[in-house]
């Protein structure tokens, strides 16, 4: 028996597929890429403005609220974007379960450590001590 014509594929997506997340991965990659374009431009401007400056001046600039907020946004957005991207690469190329899960875990560990360390550095520069 064929389905009535007015039923859209949405009905089938309600279950959100085997991963139960539907197109979430794709969409999050896109959202973070759009944000990434803007934040990368901000990062480039910040880095160029810091070139050749002393440590004291760099600390003052990186710790100022506006710059620190932009840097934190860049770090958080990039961490999520690169976690999604590396996950996709791993799932494309690593097929043996043992290595696949090892790689997926390593991806999460790497992104957590690099992201948290970078964010912590910015927070310390902002709040001092």
């Amino acid at each position, binding site marked *: 028996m064929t389905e009535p014509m007015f039923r859209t594929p949405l009905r089938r997506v309600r279950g959100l597929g085997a991963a139960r997340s539907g197109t979430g991965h794709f969409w999050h990659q896109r959202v973070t890429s759009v944000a990434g374009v803007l934040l990368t431009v901000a990062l480039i401007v910040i880095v160029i403005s810091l070139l050749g400056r002393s440590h004291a001046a760099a600390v003052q600039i990186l710790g100022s609220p506006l710059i620190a907020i932009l840097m934190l946004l860049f770090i958080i957005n990039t961490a999520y974007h690169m976690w999604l991207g590396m996950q996709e690469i791993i799932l494309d190329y690593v097929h043996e379960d043992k290595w696949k899960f090892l790689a997926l875990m390593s991806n999460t560990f*790497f992104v957590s450590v690099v992201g948290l360390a970078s964010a912590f*550095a910015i927070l310390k520069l902002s709040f001092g001590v």
Partner: protein
Amino acid sequence: MADYEARTSSGARRPRPISPHLQIYRPMLTMVMSIVHRITGSALYFGMLLLAWWLIAAASGPNAYANVEWFMGSLIGQLILFGYTWALLHHMLGGIRHLVWDTLHGFDPADREWMTVATLVGSIGLTVALWVVGYLAMGGPR
């Protein structure tokens, strides 16, 4: 891995037929750019270590910061930073191209070809331009 072998009626192993893959196609610019997008993405992934090192050093103190500045100023450091700049810009422009494609525009042979060339020319041009700006910001020729 799936088992790509089957047995003939006599029991001998026979490889399963595998569909043709990358090796039979002539490399094209769009195809090369597709893999370069992944390669630059992976490079930037590990390049985030540099950003983390730089920020942690800045938060740690003048000595740690001086170490980073020494490394970034060395020949190998400059080469890594130059490559990092290009990878970042190329991945960004390539990403914008993918966002355009997500809107179902730019799939004509002519469109996708010029967009691909623009990504490459743009990333190289912007990298050189940024380094000139950076060089001048450092005080220019001394």
